[in-house]
């Protein structure tokens, strides 16, 4: 498809905004002005609407396709939450109004939303308090890691090592590095954190370990069965335990991470609490902490006064500062809160039950189709390997041809030709069955005709694109390459 820049016609425009204000040159000296107008598209409103409508039709989406992308929790996003977050009383509200004298009184509805979701998240996770400031999961990780570092600093220790299991998401080491910490890799055994390996790491880096970042259930979709030992080992070294909430959908209502001994947790509201992924964002990554880390939370915090009114507290002397400009991805937070209130406690617990049921059903049905390395009951997702002689990538592309989004491929790195599927609770048995049939056909076809499989997809807007040449050519804008 042509780009919108190629569709531009000089002199055309939508005339969305016109005014009789003087030209900029009459208000500012020439030396401060740009020499030519920006070369943005000149299009009618219909040109623009048609262009983006056509572009939208080139996408797969949860609303049109089964999207079992592992670790991403691509569940259905209820429509009423869009309505709620778009209410003008929220959408048009300036964040700084709450910070003006008497401004809090004019932002009570919004401050209440922030306070209310914090209370609910604390109850769900068993943590003491949450900051809503982090703007996505990885941003939450950075925040959590910074809080852990601040805890040790306040005790006068210059600890510098973060322990990270080899099965972890790539963001874990990247976030720890961004916070200035060194990464120590912890090898897993049978897909799980091995307390013996952990003890060895703690001994080797005695007095220098900030903590351990864990995903639980882990990225293989397995519950960490030796969690109590892990907690005890870390407590023994006064090192902290971080919970990566990417897989929270598996344990809603079934396990409270605070009770389990985690000190800090980030959640992905866009995963667990059903807000749309937006093609890559915006997300929201609140971070919860227990009492040990509470003093270090980012500022400001929303507080409920004795009169029942809400206000912002900026007076937090031990705070790590500000990881975002204001109070978080507010519109995303409102959607998540609306979803939580709609489901209630019972409904949230049901989410975990049916997410795990769907994953286990799918895993069982695929037993004779793919190689499944871990037989035991899985959590909300599971890993499989492409059958001997087939590539995960080819299977993924063939799924696209059949109208399914592919699972996550080649992650976790410790599984050969990995296909990691997370069906979520919102998919029906019929959809899961159809997906199994599609995979069965693909594997059969691939066995007979591997070259045919390597040519997939054939029915999509484009065939496989040459990424190597693209990286070399570097055509990153209409004006490059």
């Amino acid at each position: 498809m042509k780009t919108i820049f190629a569709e531009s016609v000089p002199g055309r425009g939508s005339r969305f905004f016109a005014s009789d204000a003087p030209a900029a040159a009459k208000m500012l000296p020439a030396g401060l002005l740009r020499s030519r107008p920006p070369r943005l598209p000149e299009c009618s409103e219909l040109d623009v609407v048609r262009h983006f409508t056509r572009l939208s039709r080139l996408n797969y989406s949860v609303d049109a396709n089964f999207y079992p992308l592992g670790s991403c929790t691509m569940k259905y996003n209820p429509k009423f939450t869009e309505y709620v977050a778009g209410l003008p009383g929220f959408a048009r509200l300036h964040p700084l109004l709450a910070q003006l004298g008497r401004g809090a009184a004019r932002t009570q509805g919004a401050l209440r939303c922030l306070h209310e979701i914090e209370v609910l998240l604390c109850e769900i996770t068993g943590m003491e308090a949450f900051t809503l400031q982090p703007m996505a999961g990885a941003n939450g990780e950075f925040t959590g890691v910074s809080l852990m570092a601040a805890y040790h600093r306040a005790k006068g220790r210059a600890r510098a090592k973060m322990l990270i299991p080899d099965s972890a998401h790539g963001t874990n080491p990247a976030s720890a590095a961004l916070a200035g910490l060194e990464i120590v890799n912890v090898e897993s055994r049978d897909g799980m954190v091995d307390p013996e390996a952990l003890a060895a790491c703690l001994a080797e880096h005695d007095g220098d370990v900030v903590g351990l970042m864990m995903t639980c259930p882990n990225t293989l979709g397995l519950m960490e069965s030796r969690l109590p030992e892990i907690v005890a080992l870390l407590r023994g070294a006064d090192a902290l335990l971080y919970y990566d909430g990417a897989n929270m959908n598996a344990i809603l209502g079934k396990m409270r991470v605070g009770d389990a001994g985690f000190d800090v947790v980030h959640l992905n509201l866009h995963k667990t609490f059903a807000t749309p992924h937006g093609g890559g964002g915006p997300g929201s990554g609140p971070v919860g902490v227990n009492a040990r880390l509470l003093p270090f939370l980012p500022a400001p915090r929303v507080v409920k006064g004795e009169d029942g009114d809400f206000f912002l507290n900026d007076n937090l002397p031990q705070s790590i500062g500000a990881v975002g400009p204001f109070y978080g991805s507010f519109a995303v937070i409102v959607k998540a809160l609306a979803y939580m209130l709609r489901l209630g406690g019972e409904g949230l617990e049901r989410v975990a039950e049916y997410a795990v049921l769907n994953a286990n059903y799918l895993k069982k049905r695929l037993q004779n189709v793919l190689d499944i390395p871990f037989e035991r009951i899985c959590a909300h997702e599971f890993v499989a390997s492409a059958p001997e002689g087939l590539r995960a990538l080819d299977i993924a592309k063939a799924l696209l041809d059949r109208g399914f989004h592919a699972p996550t491929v080649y992650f976790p790195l410790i599984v050969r030709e990995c296909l990691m599927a997370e069906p979520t609770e919102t998919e029906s048995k019929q959809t899961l069955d159809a997906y199994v049939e599609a995979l069965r056909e693909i594997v059969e076809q691939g066995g007979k005709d591997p070259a045919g499989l390597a040519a997939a997809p054939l029915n999509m807007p484009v065939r496989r694109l040459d990424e190597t040449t693209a990286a070399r050519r570097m055509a990153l804008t209409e004006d490059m390459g």
Partner: protein
Amino acid sequence: MPFIPHTPREVEEMLAVVGVRGLDDLFADIPPEMRPARLNLPKGQGEAAVCSYFEKLAARNGTDMVSFLGAGFYAHDIPKAVDALAGRSEFYTAYTPYQAECSQGTLQAIFEFQTAVSRLMEMDCANASVYDGGTALFEAAMMAVRATRRRVLVVDEAVNPIWRKMLATYIAGLPVSLKTVPQKNGVSDLQALIDAPDKDCAAVIVQNPNFFGVVADYTEVFAKARLHKAFSVISVYPVMQAVLKTPGEMGADVAVAEGQSLGQPLNFGGPYLGLMACGKEHIRQLPGRIAGRASDPDGKTGYVLTLQAREQHIRRGKATSNICSNQALCALRALAHLCLLGPEGLARQAEYGMDMARQAVRRLTSLKGVEPLNDEPYGNEAALRLPAPAEQVAAALVEKGFVPGFPVGRYYPGMENILLLACTEVNRPGHIAGLAEAMGDLL
């Protein structure tokens, strides 16, 4: 069961396939002592009840006020077509384009967004966006730190203090320090910024218009930074950028912006997006997602995520950043907004805001004791010195239904009487007259 399609019969069938008796048996791996006794959460509610609850909360917020509040975040008119297009669920219920063949809509939109941002800034290339203007500033600073292997960031004090606070938070654990160059009466000290870089300086960081609304030309500052092999980083306001001298023309290495004013509602603080553009020579230091043009075996043009060797899922602890994705839907909104306004519409918005700001300054400085903070050229935002603490004046005006602007004293000790006032298309001459009258009654 809301959003769960299973019938009781299907549940039985599925449990039988899995080989367990009940749903709770699926959680047998969680140590029993870690299972919560019960959750103290409210009961679920119907959709209509939830909607009406939020309607009541939204109605308690003061969006009916006459507002001149900006400080880096601005109320602009957004074409309804932006909502309609970004509201297409083919865009908003997709995820980051891991499978390029079924994500060409998102990928081409990112490519077009990168083109639009690059052309607005007159820089070679741009990424697919980061979280917001503050993280964009931090990421730009880190590009400089990595490329120069130096550790001092020279920052103009007139860079938005909200983003400077974020910058300080983000570098707290790193061997990087900030050297702040004081502003004078809201004016960036160009000579001090020219003199600041030395052999330890990784970057000189400025903002145009600066926090106080002052417009300047940073060409000489950047030339001097280059002489010392330091980066030049500039943060801009995208709407004013339609008319102002560009980062490219000034010789910046990296240009960033808070993209909120391009098609994003204020949303009480988010989600927003950070724009990042740079010179070609720095592309491998640029963090985040980048889309590039590619071809398929039939020679058909398509788009892919490219240069992924910079990213966390490949490089893990050695990545350029920990960011996994981008603010894709916000970037789509920004792109659609720019296309619907065009170069013409964006420039008219900038000019209207500037004209209104001039009318407001004229009207308000006719009040006794109110004067401009300085005589420098300004955009759509200006700082005024009041004869009383701005916090108090603002609080009293909020009671009367006016938000007169932002009292800067909390961020700039000694400037307690200074009020920062912004104008955009949402402000009418009648608003200015109303504000002047209300303020006149108070002073």
